[in-house]
């Protein structure tokens, strides 16, 4: 028995508990939330339990960030906790809080299931934190499912609407397909390396074809979730059909978690010869996303295509890294891009949710015409988000793109970087169209003016505006803890 004790002592160390505390807090909070629903006197405390859980988890996550020595690889090398993953974790918690704020008051008929909704909103960030820290394919897979399954249910949450159910079903079926691909790849990697741990797989190398086929399937599974060509087809339908606050979480949180894993853990495993292929995939993704967005008349669907384009832009970090750019710079660029996109994307989708919840569907371009006269504050905030999505200086979106393209230039891929910048110019075309509609066009006859005003959404918008400006003007705030 004593050898078992030494084994466990070596696994469950103080740094292991420090590293996993945020996930534990989310789990406990989730149970508390369920308890609040059962015990009638505790029912009014549900919102408090939700926000409190996220705050506690964020404090625990911040402890990892500011610890004197980061825990590093813990639990026998299955979970990584360092400043980068801690910053990712914090952004997930902030992201789900913002999306939740936008969701409060969004649903009218589904109020009965408020607790279920909140529980699923707590489970998703736990999965995201697991994914980014995963140094073992098994940990990543459990994290991925812990994120995806709640999102499948949330996508179909407005069951009275056919498009919502369709979104949930599509997301579920394609998600299951990508999970199967990922699992098949993991099995092949296990056959080759004899371990699921990423460090063991890296040590074994990709010399054998088994390992090569395995890493290709694993990467395909990851690209599926990250909506990279040719696995991007599901995005517009799913993003458009899902309830808008859920879309906000999907577009920003899921993307951040997947790219976090890709950049922090998976990227070093890829063979350098894959760089041109991944660059081509990224460029094609940007092309399809941007030109798909150009022809949309529904703003929500347009933002979905824009999300695809952003995934393509961000993916350019990977070939840059593989071609020899500084690894720290590459992961910093990805982190910055994702945090900036978190505030921008959540804000943009959230404002649509705010307008939409008014009973009418304020997601078409026509209904946004003349919005500046009717709701100047919303129009102004929306303009800021759209400019940041388009990459205009003084916003976080600009600096994010700047960092990504500078990684490419550093690696000597200037031509690809220029191509990427050109696509950003195309993107401005459809972002500006919305701004023009809001400010320079008259409202259509017969369109009811949106009147919604909700405290939660207003607060969330304020946070997003501050976030976009802060990442744009004071990037050192975010990059400081990483020790650049």
């Amino acid at each position: 028995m004593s050898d078992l004790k030494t084994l466990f002592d070596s696994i469950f160390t103080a740094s292991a508990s420090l590293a996993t505390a945020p996930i534990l807090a989310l789990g406990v909070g989730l149970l508390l939330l369920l308890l609040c629903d059962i015990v009638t006197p505790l029912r009014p405390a549900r919102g408090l339990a939700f926000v409190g859980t996220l705050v506690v988890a964020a404090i625990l996550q911040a402890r990892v960030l500011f610890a004197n020595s980061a825990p590093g690889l813990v639990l026998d090398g299955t979970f990584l906790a360092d400043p980068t993953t801690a910053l990712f974790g914090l952004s997930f918690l902030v992201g789900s809080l913002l999306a939740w704020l936008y969701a409060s008051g969004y649903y009218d008929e589904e109020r009965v299931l408020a607790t279920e909704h909140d529980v699923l909103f707590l489970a998703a960030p736990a999965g995201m934190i697991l994914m980014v820290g995963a140094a073992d394919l098994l940990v990543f897979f459990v994290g991925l499912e812990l994120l995806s399954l709640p999102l499948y249910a949330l996508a179909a949450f407005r069951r009275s609407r056919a498009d919502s159910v369709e979104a949930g079903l599509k997301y579920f079926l394609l998600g299951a397909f990508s999970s199967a691909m990922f699992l098949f790849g993991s099995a092949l990697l296990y056959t080759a390396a004899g371990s699921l741990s990423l460090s063991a797989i890296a040590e074994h190398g990709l010399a054998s074809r088994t390992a090569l086929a395995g890493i290709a399937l694993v990467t395909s599974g990851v690209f599926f979730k990250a909506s990279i060509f040719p696995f991007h087809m599901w995005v517009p339908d799913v993003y458009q059909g899902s309830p808008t606050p859920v879309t906000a979480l999907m577009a920003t949180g899921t993307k951040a978690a997947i790219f976090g894993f890709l950049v922090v853990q998976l990227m070093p495993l890829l063979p350098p010869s894959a760089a041109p292929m991944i660059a081509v995939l990224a460029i094609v993704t940007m092309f399809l996303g941007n030109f798909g967005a150009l022809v949309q008349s529904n703003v929500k669907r347009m933002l979905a295509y824009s999300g695809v384009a952003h995934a393509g832009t961000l993916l350019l970090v990977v070939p840059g890294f593989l071609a020899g750019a500084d690894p720290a710079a590459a992961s910093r660029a990805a982190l910055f891009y994702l945090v900036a996109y978190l505030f921008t994307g959540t804000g943009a989708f959230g404002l649509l949710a705010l307008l939409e919840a008014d009973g009418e569907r304020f997601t078409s371009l026509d209904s946004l015409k003349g919005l500046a006269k009717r709701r100047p504050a919303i129009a102004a905030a929306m303009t800021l988000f759209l400019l940041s999505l388009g990459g205009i200086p003084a916003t976080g979106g600009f600096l994010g793109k700047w960092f990504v393209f500078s990684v490419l230039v550093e690696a000597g891929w200037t031509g690809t970087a220029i191509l990427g910048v050109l696509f950003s110019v195309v993107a401005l075309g459809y972002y500006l169209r919305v701004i023009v509609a809001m400010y320079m066009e008259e409202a259509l006859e017969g369109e009811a003016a949106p009147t919604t005003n909700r405290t939660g959404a207003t607060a969330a918008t304020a946070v997003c505006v501050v976030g976009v400006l802060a990442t744009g003007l004071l990037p050192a705030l975010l990059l400081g803890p990483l020790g650049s």
Partner: protein
Amino acid sequence: MAELLFYLLSLGAIGFGIGVIRTHMPLYSVLSLLGTFFCLAGIYLLAGFPFLAATQLLVYAGAIMVLFLFVIMLLNLGDRDELNRQTGVALSGPRLAAAGICAGLLGLAGLIAAGWGGKVTPTEAVAAGGVDRLNDIAEVLFGRYMLPFEAASLLLLATMVGVMSLAKRQRGEETEAGDTGWPWHKGVEQ
């Protein structure tokens, strides 16, 4: 001998798997699934994992299958025409092509892996650190893989809540007399 058994069981698993999606009778589907589970349990046994094989039989072939059968009987899905009307399962050209391409790609990946990557026979897998003692499994589950193991329980809970939110009928939706709010009670004689 072991290799022959392995291929037989694999063929059986694939055959039953096709049976699950090819038959029009839900009951046959479930029974085919049962066959797949049995074949998989046999493969685990061959690979030197008796505990895993037993668990597979107990949990999947036992508990979960009974659940499936219950649902089928509660929903009264025995009628073939009824199911066809609901799901319209039919093999059309495009569907067949799509399935063929998928299966072909997966098979190709498997062939590449098996043909050029060096074969791993069940005996080698055991020698390379296979676990077949309960203690070993516990050590791995509660040691190295503590985090995913515990996270899986969170995952199951979240999934349960998600399924509830999708399946439960809400206030405001049309309810009939004697309706308990759960979809499978609709239309059942009270």
